[in-house]
């Protein structure tokens, strides 16, 4: 699907020799980027490689220490986000900038309403929005409230907003993270449509299959430097990973089969939270059980029911054959269960506290006598995990908010490892995490399985499921639609067909 980019064309965007440093860290060093009209340039790199800093320089949030930015041959003199927007740069972040209580039309025109004396015409606005949507081949009612739209639809509204602002350069930061595969296909269709209209797109993602599908060229950054820019066709997955990480990765999914023991966790007839219906399954000691399904299939809801985070309507939970009553996370933790939530910033961590305090939160009883915390013992325990999990902290009491996604996830994991959980539920364990850190997390999962823990892994990344799980359960609209027992020989299509409801 790569478009032919003529070598004689001038780039629509040229960033040359960009330097940016913050106290204590050189975030960008001599980075250059070229973007041509009508092409998709994928921007790849590990967390901390400098991708978001580069984008923030482009969008006017940061002012570079050195270097130039040229758009269509001119220097737009970008000194603020408004300048960048006026120059035609539009950035769509993972956390959308939409006002949920306003409708799509209002959001798209926000700040650019054509109003006379402060009065605007709803009819005109509606018509213009409809035109925009039809050109993008999407069917969304401009009057629908943004908070009632699905995540994929909201993303379309964001793109429409950028188009309305006459964006020439569109930057998309992890656009597919929260989309189902069907929605991703539709997104790609929109992107291809945008390409034909000459818009240049910078696409940031950790999902390598997508990169191969949609990108024309691929630019890799590492440690604040530009490593290489190559055409996407002809590039292999291994080459790409090697460029990003700086070393050869033998096996992307280092699955080691662990010896399987008896049933550790068994769930019978679990229903609740409005979605889950009569779910029954079991996980053995040392087993990694994958849970697949489309967004909205009820996987997270099921995990929360098991963990006691939400009250269940019916169902029984057995640990090592013994029935247990779990009515709250406190019960779950006491019984050796733990849940690594899919949204670690909102539910897994208290961002304002330090890494050590987050790590210690469920485990304070390990280091306290009569409710008084022994800070030294706490720090010693934490230091142990910093070493074993290779967590990168710039200093001991660093706030968790400043860490990269991978390191944040490691803090969450350290927290539960210290709690000696025997059943570990991962909900999207590697979302938003770069290749290098992903590999480390997979290895940790292996170690846990080898120690005899029972692991549930909810994931939307099919290669990850196929690469790391012993068995895979597929959910569809709240209930289990099927099970894949022979994972080494299974295919993505098998999982997908179960996920959309066709029984095997």
């Amino acid at each position: 699907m790569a478009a032919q980019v003529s070598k004689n064309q001038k780039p629509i965007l040229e960033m040359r020799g960009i330097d940016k440093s913050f106290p204590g860290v050189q975030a960008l060093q001599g980075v250059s980027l070229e973007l041509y009209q009508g092409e998709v340039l994928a921007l790849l790199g590990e967390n901390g490689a400098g991708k978001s800093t580069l984008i923030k320089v482009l969008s006017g949030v940061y002012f570079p220490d050195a270097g130039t930015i040229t758009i269509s041959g001119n220097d737009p003199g970008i000194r603020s986000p408004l300048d960048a927007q006026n120059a035609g740069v539009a950035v769509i972040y993972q956390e959308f900038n939409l006002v949920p209580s306003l409708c799509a039309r209002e959001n798209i025109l926000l700040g650019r309403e054509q109003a006379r004396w402060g009065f605007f015409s709803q009819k005109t606005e509606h018509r213009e929005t409809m035109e925009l949507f039809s050109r993008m081949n999407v069917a969304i009612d401009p009057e629908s409230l943004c908070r009632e739209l699905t995540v994929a639809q909201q993303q379309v509204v964001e793109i429409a907003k950028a188009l309305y602002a006459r964006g020439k350069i569109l930057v998309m930061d992890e656009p597919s993270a929260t989309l189902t595969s069907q929605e991703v296909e539709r997104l790609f269709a929109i992107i291809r449509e945008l390409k034909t209209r000459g818009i240049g797109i910078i696409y940031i993602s950790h999902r390598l299959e997508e990169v191969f599908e949609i990108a024309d060229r691929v630019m890799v950054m590492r440690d604040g430097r530009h490593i290489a820019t190559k055409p996407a066709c002809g590039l292999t997955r291994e080459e790409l990973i090697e460029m990003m990480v700086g070393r050869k990765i033998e096996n992307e999914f280092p699955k080691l089969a662990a010896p399987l023991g008896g049933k550790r966790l068994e769930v019978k007839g679990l229903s609740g939270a409005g979605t889950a219906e009569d779910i029954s399954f079991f996980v053995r000691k040392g087993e990694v059980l994958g849970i697949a399904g489309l967004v909205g299939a009820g996987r997270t809801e099921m995990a929360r029911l098991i963990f006691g985070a939400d009250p269940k309507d019916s169902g029984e939970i057995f640990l090592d054959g013994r029935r247990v009553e779990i009515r709250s996370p406190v019960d779950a933790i006491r019984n050796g269960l733990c849940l690594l939530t899919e949204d670690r910033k909102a539910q897994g961590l208290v961002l304002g506290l330090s890494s050590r305090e987050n790590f210690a939160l469920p485990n304070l009883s390990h280091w306290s006598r009569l409710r008084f915390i022994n800070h030294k013992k706490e720090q010693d325990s934490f230091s142990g995990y910093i070493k074993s999990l290779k967590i990168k902290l710039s200093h001991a009491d660093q706030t968790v908010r400043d860490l990269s996604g991978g390191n944040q996830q490691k803090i969450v994991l350290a927290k539960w490892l210290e709690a000696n959980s025997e059943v570990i539920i991962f909900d999207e364990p590697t979302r938003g995490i770069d290749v290098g850190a992903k590999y480390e997390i997979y290895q940790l999962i292996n170690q846990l399985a080898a120690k005899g823990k029972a692991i549930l892994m909810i994931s939307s990344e099919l290669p990850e499921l196929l690469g790391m799980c012993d068995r895979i359960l597929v959910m569809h609209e709240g209930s289990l639609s099927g099970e894949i027992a022979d994972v080494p020989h299974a295919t993505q299509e098998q999982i997908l067909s179960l996920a959309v409801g066709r029984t095997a």
Partner: protein
Amino acid sequence: MLKKKATFSTFLSQYGMLFVLILLCVFFSLATLSEQHPEGEKAARILFGELSKDSDKKTAVLIAAKNNQEDSRFANALENLLKKKIGVSAKIIKGDPSQFRKMLEETPEKERNWEVIATTSSYAPSVSRIVERFPALSGAIIKTPKSYTWPTFLLKNNLMNVANQIVVIAIIAVGMTMVIITAGIDLSVGSLVALSAVVVTWFIRTMGGAQATPLAILTSGFLAVLLCGFIGAFSGLMITRFRIPPFIATLGMMQVASGFAYIISRGRPIYEVPDSFVWLGRGYSPFFSLPYAVILMGIIYIIAHIMMTRTTLGRYIYAVGGNPEAARLSGVRTNRVICFVYIVCGAMAGLGGIVMASQLKSGAPTYGLMYELYVIASVVVGGTSLAGGEGKIMGTLIGAFIIAVIQNGMNLTNVESYTQKVVLGFVILGAVLLDMLKKRGWKRRKISR
């Protein structure tokens, strides 16, 4: 592990408010620098210092003093010092000018051979006028304690005043700090002060009134604090079980508590309490003459500080304030933690009410009016964020002192009371602005993002 780079800005951010407090004290000290005329025991000591230089056993000294408490202390202290240190027996004549003259006339001539007449600087003019009429005393020198230059602000009496003024607010602010750290608020504390004052005095009156025993007083106090803690628990319950926003829940209880205060007291102050009741509110301890109430405040702050920084409960309070859902999913019993802080806040308000009743020797439903605002101001000025998740107990103490120092300073420099209100309002805004800048970095760019 690398230590955080210790730059001036990090130092300032940690101890910023203390710095502000010190600056204010320096400012008001300079602004109130003036001639101080000592009184009481201090005057005696200063004067003794002078007298001892050129007097000895044989010098005859007359001490002239007015009939009030301050001068009596001066006279007794000086007499003691003279006798004990240099063996001089001095005669004291106490009274207003006419009494003084009469007593002089009644003293036989041969005893009127004083060389030194010691008196306070305020009484000296009258004394010298009277002594002029006695030619036998023409050789006597009238000595007064030398005045000295010292900021009125830093006089011991004044500093005690500052501390006393802020004690009630500061005690309540301990509980409020915890509540605000959990991202909540408690508007009912002012009414709880009134309710507690009324309840404690009501119980004392019922249990003997002016003849009530110390045990009765203690029991009454305990019951008042218990009641206020209970009301705090009720607020906490509404907030956790029924998900009523803290602002609304405590606003409601504010009215309820105030209403109860008026009902119990029938709208009138209750003053049938024994004299011993003022021990807490007005009593001075032997330790550096610190008022008992200030010592109580100090103890409460130390306990609270230790709890918040060293115990699991303290950690949980910060976690619940920072991200209640994440805390719950980590096994923290968030509902219990929230109820706990509201109980503490209520109890502290109850304690504050008792101190107030003790200070004023009565309980009335009009006490504590608008106190919630001063309490919240102390917490906020002290660096705790209303958004929750962070804050320091000691910061609140500094915040309370900043407010008290500013009010006291303005009084001493004769700022009109209406102007004081305006100033105080701007101080609160300034403190919060300082805090925001401190957090977001001093660069304006970051703020606009």
